[in-house]
């Protein structure tokens, strides 16, 4: 177990070193992970809410370009941020949404209150 157990930089699927959150002006851009479930949604919500509080955010853009899995916890995440932004007079958008995730968003009815943009250029890359 000596020397040979160096920590790898990243685990299997996660490749891009881009940060999860980026603030531009009063917009918070969130790069949604590959799999959005209760586990990953909880991490995002905690980070995003902190930034909304400290950086005077008025818009949250969730970038789903790398997301292939989403369950009802993802819906909870979107609706929760929507309520927070609504109270602040701001807005929430979901962009670069793939087919599978779109189906979940459609089924949940979340698209009635949150604008959703499909992934550009047809299906997958």
């Amino acid at each position: 177990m000596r020397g040979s157990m160096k920590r790898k930089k990243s685990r299997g699927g996660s490749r891009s070193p881009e940060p999860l959150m980026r603030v531009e002006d009063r917009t918070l851009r969130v790069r949604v992970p590959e799999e959005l479930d209760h586990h990953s949604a909880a991490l995002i919500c905690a980070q995003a809410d902190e930034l909304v509080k400290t950086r005077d955010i008025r818009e949250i853009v969730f970038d789903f370009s790398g997301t292939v899995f989403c369950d009802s916890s993802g819906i909870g995440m979107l609706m929760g941020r929507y309520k927070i932004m609504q109270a602040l007079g701001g807005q929430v958008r979901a962009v670069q949404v793939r087919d599978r995730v779109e189906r979940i968003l459609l089924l949940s009815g979340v698209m009635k209150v949150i604008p959703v943009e499909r992934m550009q250029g047809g299906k997958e890359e």
Partner: protein
Amino acid sequence: MKNEMCLEFDSISANEAFARVTVAAFMTQMNPSMEEVADVKTAVSEAVTNAIIHGYGGEVHKIVIRGEIDGEWLCLEVKDRGVGIPDVEKAMEPLYTTRPELERSGMGFLFMEAFMDEVKVESEPGKGTKVIMKKRIRQQEE
């Protein structure tokens, strides 16, 4: 073809991905479509998340998944020994949640029912909950 498996793991949120990926691997021998795999993964994720959040209320105990392939039917049981559900019918209503402060959307059972052919819930307060789900997999040609 008949095949069975059983999986037992701790009720921590990191295991949500483990559970759905393992079930997806188990069902690959049925030659499912990508859509069918995605449907089952979503349903498993919902049931396991329910067990973690509601069944055990964040405490760490065991969750058991039993899987059975019987011809073109995939049958899954997700079981916890948590608090149980006093009113299953109510719990399965869309948008109903006992934990709005945790931002539960109340759509867990809705998604299970949307993506599986059959969903049944057996629960007893104080004893635990068992979610039984079935899906018919149309075998793909190679």
